[in-house]
Structures are given as structure tokens and as C-alpha cells.
């Protein structure tokens, strides 16, 4: 399959364009975005300023003094490489505490969803999530793959700032927040994994397209892992 097959090109001013693979959160669209992003990263064509992959689209920004849309698209390989589809995204196991003050809104979210709190955590922990995009704030990670039973609308107005490392749900998605900020989402847990560090390469632990499963830890283990540089993040054994 060609990298651009079935894609829609959208304008975004005079020095950018958007390659759209759909207008909903869809794993297939997400994977295609990931493969196109990987192709641009591997090519690093002259004049490419940056790309922004999201759940369903890729923003491509370029220097119009150096290149243009047609040149950038023509530089892409005609077909996806034989190993492109097989290139495995990394699978991660992420510790999460879901007790007491570390899961501030758990009871409230459970009530809204008409579920016992323990059922909410059970459903959440059973899920496999995919990192759909970063956005909104440095390292703020949007995850797809949330069970429909946990689809809860955002709050009408934001709550007080949550703690760094908050694990959030709302709008049919989950998210990990590296820094405290007001949010319309519900805080159902906290991870000790550091989610953004501008001095680290890469500055975030996960790549778009990676999968994440959560491992529940108690407050004592949370405190122990929080003291580690990796916060207890582990790759799943293949």
C-alpha cells in the first residue's frame, strides 16, 4: 500500500499541509499516520521544519524558501517498505496507583459512570491503550483504547490543577499529564513515570503508536518507584 493511499490533503497556510487519514479516532488511521511520520523522519527531506502526528492526521510544516508540498510528497517512497507494517511499536507496562489521594476523582468518575469504583479500576487496568498523540502541553499524552464503559464526558468547567503524573479519563480517551494544570478530565490514578524531560533524548518515554498497559501499584510502591529515574517503566516482554 502506498503511504498516501486514500489520504486527503488539506491546506494549512502557505508553508504547511495536513495529510488526513480520517476524521475519527481509529487505530488503522493512527497506524498510517505513524508510518507516514516514520517515512518523513527517515527521509529528513531538505526544508522540512517539523511534523505533528495525531490520532488521524499528520501536519507537515516546511520552509517555503527551500521546498514545497509537491516536492515533499514526491520524495516519499512509492510504497510502504516491506518491513513498515511489521515494524513493531514498543509495548510498555506503566505503573499506576489508583488509591486514595492519588486517585482523587475516582469515586466521582465511578458515580458518573454508575459503576462501583473497583469495577472502574478493573475495566481500566484490563485495557490495552495506544499513544495517539502528544498535544496541549509538553508531554501531555493522549491514549485511545478506552473501554466504552468508561466513556465519560468532560466536566462542564475545569477542576483545580491535578498533580504531575495524573492518569486521566474523559471524552472516550485517557491521558497522562506530565505537569499540574487545571483539567476538565477525571483523575483516576497517578503514575510515577516521568513523562517529560527537555534534557532527555527523546524528551518523552513513548512514541506515537506505542501501546501501553497499566500495572496497579499501592501507595508504598508508588513512593518507591517515584524515587527511580525511570519511575518503574518497563517494556513488555515480546
Amino acid at each position: 500500500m502506498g503511504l498516501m493511499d486514500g489520504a486527503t490533503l488539506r491546506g494549512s497556510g502557505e508553508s504547511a499541509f495536513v495529510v488526513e487519514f480520517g476524521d475519527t479516532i481509529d487505530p488503522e488511521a493512527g497506524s498510517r499516520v505513524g508510518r507516514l511520520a516514520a517515512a518523513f523522519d527517515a527521509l529528513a527531506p531538505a526544508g522540512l521544519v517539523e511534523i505533528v502526528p495525531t490520532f488521524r492526521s499528520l501536519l507537515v510544516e516546511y520552509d517555503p524558501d527551500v521546498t514545497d508540498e509537491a516536492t515533499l510528497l514526491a520524495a516519499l517512497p512509492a510504497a510502504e517498505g516491506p518491513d513498515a507494517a511489521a515494524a513493531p511499536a514498543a509495548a510498555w507496562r506503566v505503573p499506576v496507583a489508583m488509591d486514595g489521594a492519588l486517585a482523587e476523582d475516582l469515586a466521582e468518575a465511578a458515580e458518573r459512570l454508575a459503576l462501583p469504583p473497583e469495577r472502574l479500576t478493573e475495566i481500566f487496568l484490563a485495557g490495552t491503550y495506544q499513544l495517539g498523540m502528544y498535544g496541549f502541553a509538553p508531554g501531555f499524552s493522549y491514549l485511545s483504547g478506552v473501554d466504552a464503559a468508561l466513556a465519560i464526558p468532560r466536566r462542564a468547567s475545569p477542576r483545580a490543577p491535578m498533580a504531575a503524573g495524573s492518569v486521566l479519563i474523559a471524552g472516550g480517551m485517557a491521558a497522562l499529564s506530565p505537569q499540574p494544570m487545571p483539567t476538565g478530565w477525571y483523575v483516576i490514578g497517578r503514575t510515577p513515570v516521568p513523562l517529560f524531560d527537555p534534557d532527555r533524548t527523546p524528551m518523552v518515554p513513548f512514541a506515537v503508536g506505542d501501546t501501553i498497559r497499566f500495572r496497579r501499584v499501592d501507595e508504598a510502591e508508588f513512593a518507591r518507584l517515584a524515587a527511580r529515574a525511570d519511575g518503574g517503566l518497563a517494556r513488555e516482554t515480546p
Partner: protein
Amino acid sequence: MSASLVLTRANHLVTVQDRGRRGAMRYGVSQSGAMDWVRFAQALALAGGTPHAAFEVGVLGAGFRASGRVVLAVTGPGFAVRVDGAEPRVLTPPVRIVLADGESLSVEPGRAGMWAYVAVPGLDFGPPVLGSYATNARTGLGARDFARPFPVAETPPLEPLSPEDIALPGGPIGILPGPQQHLFAPAVQALFAAEPYRVTDQLDRMGYRLEGPPLEASTHDIISDGIVRGAVQVPGNGQPIALGADRAPTGGYPKIAVIAAADFPRLVQSRPGDTVRLRWLTRPEAEKRRRAVAALLQKPFAPRVRSDFTSEFLASRNLIGGVVAADPDRSDPPDP
């Protein structure tokens, strides 16, 4: 003798900016950078072309004091520069000034213009963050300690100069299609370019809220995608928001348009209450306008021939009160 520059009057609208932090939007890091790329580039050129970054000064102004000989280039439409020292004087940007030891300079807002730039050859802003000196107002990335004097290394032997301001293209502000233009009916797209929109006092480095005939889309809630500088997003109330340097990298409102690069400085230098008119451009038309501005920036500085007061003074009628009252936290409605 080693020189330094200290900010004697700072506020939340004074930041360090450059061409922006590039390559990390995919990790959620905003681009940031100068709001008015033309006046920023002009300040750097006027400072001898060596600085990579400059102070951006908003409508609350700023004050500086030199220790040792310091050269400063100041740009920004409508602003005035007052020099206090042995030879007090008031100057109109763009201007290159040589401060003697102990002299101070203040950048004062006038009756027009929102952003001024102060570039200083040899000034050390400290290490860049993620390859950029830019300050992001929302996250604090790249923020500098303004209580500390900035060391100024040996500076080139530049003389005072008052060149002409860059003549930006006139007429309506040019716009190009945004990635969700198709969610707006052709009549709505035409409306955006036919009716005047007023710049509200809800503005900051993240974005400028405009007010005018509402722009209805088939949906105002999309799955977030990437946002370029100058993108015009339209939330459910139909009132457009032109996004600035500190915008979030992604957002979930449909983007009807993107403001042409050559015209973005005019928009961001508009004051609350000003009216803007817009016009759809093709990519080649926008390119031509941008190249024309870039060519002006390449030209050697010619001394200014002062014939009368600038048209900015005559055209301006709004004071700065509304801007100062704007809530710095309001900005773009948050995604999460």
C-alpha cells in the same frame, strides 16, 4: 570593562523570543517565538545581525539600564524610546541606540502597536532550551531571571541609526485555507472575507479573539490536529480566534483559515477595538507577499527621511487599557 544590561522595569509581557522552538510540537511543546516576525528580524539586523534572540516588549513597556557601553536596536510600530542620561532624548523605532555607562532606556507604548523588540549585540541570554531562547508564557519553558543582569560581550562598533520602518503590504489581511475549511459552507467562507471583524481585548501571545458575524461549521468539535501560527480556529460560538506564537501545538476546534505570513504582523500589532478585514489568497499570492517583505528585510538600512508624523499616529484611536485588563490565563480554551 565588561558591559551588562539590566531590566529595570519588567512585567509579564516582557519575554525573550527568537524564531521559535522547532521540532518538538510533536511532543506537545509550543513553537513560541516572536509574535511579529518582521519587526523581530528587523531588530536583529539593526543590531548587526549577530544576535539570535531579542527581548519582546508588550504594551506595558519595559525599562533597561546599561553598565558599560551597550548597543540596542529597538523596533515596534507606534512605540517610543526614551533615553535618560547625559543626553536625554526621545526616539521613534526602528532605531539603533548606543547607551553609555549608567544610561537607561525605556520602551513606551504609543497609541498603536502591541509588540516591540529590543536586540542587543553580544548579549548573553544563557543556554537555549530545546534549541531555542524563546519563552513560553504558559509553560514557563525558556523563562529567564530578569532580576539578574545580562552580560554583554564586546560589541561591534555600531553607530546610532534611525532607518525607515518596513513597509508591510496594505489592504485586507490575507488568509489561506485552513485544514478544516471544508467544514464551513462556501457562503460562510465568503462571509469571513466580506465582513469586518473587531479585535477584542481577549488577546495574548496564544491567540487573538475576533468578534464579528458568527462563522458556523458543520461541527465545531473535531479530533485534534496540528496548528500552525496564524491558524484561525472557530469554537462553537462562531467567533474566530487567530492563534499566535504560544498556541498549543494541537487543538480540537475547526480551523477555517491561516493568516498569510506577510500579513500576520499587522494582525498581531492591532489593538483591541481595531477592525480588520480579511481576504482569501492563493498560495502563490501569499508567497509573493511574503517574499516582498523578506526582500525588504534584506535591503541595507537607509536613514529615515522624517516628513511628518507617521500614519500610525493618525490612524490610532485606541488606548491600551483593554489589553492590560486581559486575563493572561484566559487564552485558548483548553483541550483537556
